[in-house]
């Protein structure tokens, strides 16, 4: 490789070395990063997507809303008492009781949580008017689905647990390297700031790649770095290991020194859990927020601790980066205040606050819908940055083999071409196909949520196979046609399977469903535009 020989010798070699680094670090991670970025961009609207994917819930939600407005149910004090009675009767030995008495307005659902025998989070819903346990909604009426949360899970761990998390983390680090090396390589970054010359082949692709990257550069750096730091102690445990050690005891010590505070120690002396309402009221006053949850650690023990957590108001969410809610901890036995955390503060000092703010920055927990749309736009730009980079690599080498791999170069280029189609068009097909699966899979089948996921991965796998079996130009065309069709016909699918359609959604103010369908149509139009571009190119 010419660049490798030049490295370490020529003076102007720095920019060339960085160009080499940018090309190869960028290329090998482009396909994975495209997937992470596209699903991350869709994850901004995971709740609206989940809403669209659970049409049976619409009637339920509407009824619940109407009921909540008509009769707010019992008071908080009563709800807390019912919750406690339920827990005392059904789960007296649990290490933790968690009660969510109401929504921010004092109405809504009454739910309780605990850790079951397998140490998994378990929940039950109680009737806010009577305190009696509500039977689970008829499993056959509502379809089981991961909803939009699939995009979130895939985005940060590829549905593959810790290994997936590491893979995404490595890719994010590669993205940072690509960003910095790209800036260093881009000689005329200011002069070319607005430069976009369409219809000029390779030059156009380079211009497009530069434009979407440079114009959204602050976002790209922020999103990659915050993404890494959120799971930073997993990726960089060295400090913790050297200063605290390994193993659960060290972890517990670490967590408690951070100020997050694990469970308090048991005393072994039995003590009935006191009435919760006074604690809730005091907590509410201390943190200045309506009560969201009351958590009792070691219920039934004299060392029990009662934590009161608040709801972030819309205004607080709008104006604060750190999403932490207010919290007040009390000793159940003495009623003394153990700790107060004001809304937005972190359990700890400056570094923990930065950690919380960076989490908020990455997951756009702040700023309202306007911010979400900005993230969506910049996310699409980032996705385009990766896709255009991968395409640029091939376009540049279509007419001039650069022989980077000696005799194997042609085969490597063929591999890249196929991966480009599968990673870009194929992944998009899988994403919209997931929505199609949601409507087409029978509602009552076993493991329905897992099946929808299988459709997603199956479509992606088929796209990969297809991309290897067909010539690149044909593969692009056929997958883009599939993409355009699936996207543009999504509203038709919805109409045929649920009877719902855009005018009805708009009439009842269902912006979420309307947004999903209009978004799909917009993506379909973009795919159609790409097809037209392909046609013009092959015609030229």
């Amino acid at each position: 490789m010419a660049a490798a020989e030049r490295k370490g010798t020529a003076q102007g070699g720095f920019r060339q070395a960085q160009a080499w680094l940018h090309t190869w670090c960028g290329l090998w991670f482009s396909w994975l990063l495209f997937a992470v970025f596209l699903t991350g961009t869709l994850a901004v609207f995971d709740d609206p997507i989940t809403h669209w994917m659970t049409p049976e819930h619409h009637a339920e939600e509407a009824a619940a809303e109407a009921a909540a407005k008509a009769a707010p149910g019992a008071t908080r004090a009563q709800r807390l008492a019912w919750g406690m009675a339920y827990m005392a009767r059904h789960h007296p030995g649990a290490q933790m009781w968690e009660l969510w008495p109401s929504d921010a307005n004092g109405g809504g659902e009454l739910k309780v949580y605990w850790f079951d025998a397998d140490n998994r989070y378990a929940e039950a819903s109680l009737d806010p008017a009577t305190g009696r346990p509500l039977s689970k909604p008829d499993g056959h009426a509502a379809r089981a689905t991961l909803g939009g949360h699939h995009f979130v899970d895939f985005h940060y761990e590829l549905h593959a647990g810790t290994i997936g998390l590491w893979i995404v983390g490595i890719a994010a680090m590669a993205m940072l390297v690509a960003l910095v090396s790209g800036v260093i390589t881009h000689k005329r970054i200011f002069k070319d700031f607005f430069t976009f010359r369409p219809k000029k082949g390779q030059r156009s692709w380079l211009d497009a790649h530069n434009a979407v990257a440079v114009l959204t550069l602050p976002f790209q750096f922020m999103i990659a770095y915050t993404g890494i730091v959120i799971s930073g102690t997993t990726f960089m445990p060295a400090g913790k290991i050297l200063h605290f050690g390994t193993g659960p005891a060290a972890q517990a010590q670490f967590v408690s020194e951070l100020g997050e505070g694990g469970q308090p120690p048991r005393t072994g002396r039995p003590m009935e859990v006191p009435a919760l309402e006074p604690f809730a009221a005091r907590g509410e006053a201390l943190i200045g927020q309506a009560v969201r949850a009351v958590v009792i650690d070691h219920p039934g023990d004299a060392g029990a601790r009662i934590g009161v957590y608040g709801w972030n108001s819309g205004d607080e969410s709008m104006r604060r980066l750190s999403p932490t809610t207010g919290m007040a901890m009390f000793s159940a036995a003495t009623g003394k205040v153990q700790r107060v955390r004001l809304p937005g503060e972190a359990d700890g000092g400056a570094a923990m606050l930065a950690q919380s703010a960076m989490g908020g920055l990455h997951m756009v927990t702040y700023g309202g819908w306007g911010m979400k749309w900005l993230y969506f736009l910049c996310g699409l730009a980032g996705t385009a940055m990766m896709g255009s980079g991968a395409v640029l690599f091939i376009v540049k080498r279509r007419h001039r083999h650069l022989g980077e791999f000696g005799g194997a170069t042609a085969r490597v280029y063929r591999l890249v071409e196929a991966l480009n189609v599968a990673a870009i068009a194929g992944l998009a097909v899988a994403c919209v196909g997931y929505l199609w699966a949601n409507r087409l899979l029978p509602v009552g089948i076993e493991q329905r949520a897992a099946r929808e996921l299988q459709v997603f991965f199956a479509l992606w796998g088929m796209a990969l196979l297809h991309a290897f079996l067909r010539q690149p130009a044909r593969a692009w065309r056929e997958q883009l046609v599939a993409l355009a069709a699936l996207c543009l016909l999504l509203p038709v699918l919805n109409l045929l399977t649920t009877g719902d359609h855009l005018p009805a959604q708009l009439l009842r103010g269902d912006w979420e469903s309307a947004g999903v369908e209009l978004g799909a149509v917009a993506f379909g139009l973009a795919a159609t535009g790409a097809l037209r571009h392909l046609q013009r190119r092959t015609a030229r």
Partner: protein
Amino acid sequence: MTTGQAAMLGLALAYAGMAALSFAMDRHHEQLTRRREVPVRLRVSLRMGGTVLLAAAAVPCVSAWGATVGTVAWLGLLSAGALPVALLLPYRPRGVAWLAAFAAVASCIGLALAFAGSLR
């Protein structure tokens, strides 16, 4: 000011500012006027005006979202304003210019109204 209004105002100011900065460059000035070079006085005024517009975009942002989040929103809106300039310049340079002029005027009026409202 609601965040929706702030976003629109901020976007208009960011777009107008970015457009102004683009026309201060020879390459894009030529796209608009067919003249090779930007006259020095025009370049300076476009650069200054563009910078002022970009800075002004921070005002509705901080007003609606507070200082921290407002700064983040401002950066995002700068990007959102720059992207259409780059995308549309090669196709409709005059359209970009007219839209920028309109956006600048409309957002200045909007800002003035918002201030007058808050003073009252």
